[in-house]
């Protein structure tokens, strides 16, 4: 398998007035394989969201390079084959479901007919037919995040960056959306970089898990997830699952200083 995305010695520190700058990411190197589902897990505040924002170009790295299919996308803001799903959904409240999904196509200059058609496809894919003309405030949290998925997918990104997309949802909705995400991933052929702080979620979804050390974020360990696909809810109670979960937990615990 070839590398879809290469992170080479990324570093980021935030200035803090008179105090020394806060190092959030240091010497971060990672290869993300084409079409794999990669979970990034670490304690909260470890810099994993910052990592995602660096990849999407929302913040600039102090040093290091980001290569996508070998081409340099370091410092390129948004777009360029990257689609991002945000933790707090962050839909545009003044746009309907359709309007939100069409946004990325609109600013990319796609024609009206094409926008419409593609939006309809992805709205159907995330199961929101009938809610095309609803505003975000008329939708539940789970439905809002479905719009968030469709909005990111509509620009046909090669890599989907997901920043704790289920973090703001209740457990049941979370479980349902996890399965739907896996379905979408299997039909849409995407490379997924999925940031989470839930160990169970990371194992259930991913091919590989990157465990991150807390600030400054560095790769602590990369774990291959041994379960076959399609996956079902029941693997969560398998002994291997629980063992893997325990293993990751002890890795995380070492790093956590309360």
């Amino acid at each position, binding site marked *: 398998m070839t590398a879809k995305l290469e992170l080479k010695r990324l570093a980021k520190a935030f200035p803090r007035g008179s105090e020394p700058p806060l190092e959030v990411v240091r010497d971060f190197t990672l290869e993300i394989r084409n079409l794999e589902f990669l979970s990034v897990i670490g304690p909260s505040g470890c810099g994993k969201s910052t990592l995602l924002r660096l990849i999407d170009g929302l913040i600039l790295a102090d040093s290091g390079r980001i290569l996508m299919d070998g081409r340099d996308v370091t410092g390129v803001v948004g777009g360029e084959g990257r689609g991002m799903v945000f933790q707090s959904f962050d839909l*545009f409240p*003044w746009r309907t479901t359709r309007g939100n999904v069409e946004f990325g196509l609109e600013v990319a200059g796609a024609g009206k007919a094409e926008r419409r058609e593609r939006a309809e496809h992805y709205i159907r894919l995330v199961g929101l037919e009938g809610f095309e003309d609803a*505003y975000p*405030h008329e939708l539940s949290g789970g439905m809002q995040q479905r719009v968030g998925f469709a909005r990111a997918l509509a620009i046909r990104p090669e890599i989907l960056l997901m920043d704790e997309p289920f973090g703001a949802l209740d457990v049941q909705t979370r479980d349902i959306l996890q399965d739907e995400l896996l379905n979408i991933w299997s039909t849409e052929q995407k490379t997924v970089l999925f940031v989470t702080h839930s160990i169970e979620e990371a194992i259930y979804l991913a091919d590989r898990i990157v465990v991150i050390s807390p600030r400054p974020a560095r790769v602590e360990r990369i774990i291959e997830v041994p379960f076959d696909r399609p996956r079902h809810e029941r693997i969560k109670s398998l002994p291997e699952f629980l063992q893997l979960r325990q293993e990751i937990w002890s890795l995380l615990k070492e790093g956590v200083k309360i």
Partner: protein
Amino acid sequence: MTPTRKLMLQLSGIAIVLLMWEIAGRIMGENLLAAPSIVAVTYVELLLDGEMLIELLNSLRQMILGFGAACLVGMPLGALMGRSRLIDALVHPWISMIVVTSVAALVPIFMMLFGTGFEFRVAIVFVATIGYVVLTAYHGARGIDPKILDVARSFGTGRIDTYRKVILPALFPYLITGARLGLVHAIRAMVVAEMFVIVGYGGLIFQTGLDLSTAPILGYLVTIMVVSIGANVALQRVGDRVAPWYAARMAR
């Protein structure tokens, strides 16, 4: 509190004051303070006479020009101030000065600059309004959720599209609020300016102040209040219609 109960209380509040006013009016007499009952009768006469409404419409036309110009200049200016520190630093002191300045104090200078005609009234209304429009747009623009701007950037949205498709719609509720606030001040400024040069509706109020009875002048005040409140409610309705997402959020 249920809406009906609230309405009943509001009406009762008005009724109590009207009653006290009626008693005071009967004691003090019509040339000091006309009682509501007398004002009501006079008011019907004023309506039928037509002069009040004609003067009002003339004045409102000029007011709308000044108000519209203030919105056209003030809304983009406020938005830019909220998004650019450079522009904010350059312009903010002037806006602060304009907002605290009394319109009446500006009248003598404006009379020298613009005469006493059409330009004078438009200019006074413009200056009285623009500060409020700018400041509400400014605070709206500063308060835009940075996360929503991140979404725009994440999709590689260009500068112009970010303004048109993200900042402007996010600002919309503030623009409506600014317009409502500005409109109240525009109408006030219109009356004040006209009272100085004795033209239009303000002039009518000024001249009537010299009459023996206070009933007509109170009638004129009622009309201008109705216009001001009515315009305000209308603007709010327009805002709710055009921005249903905002109305729903506020209703929560």
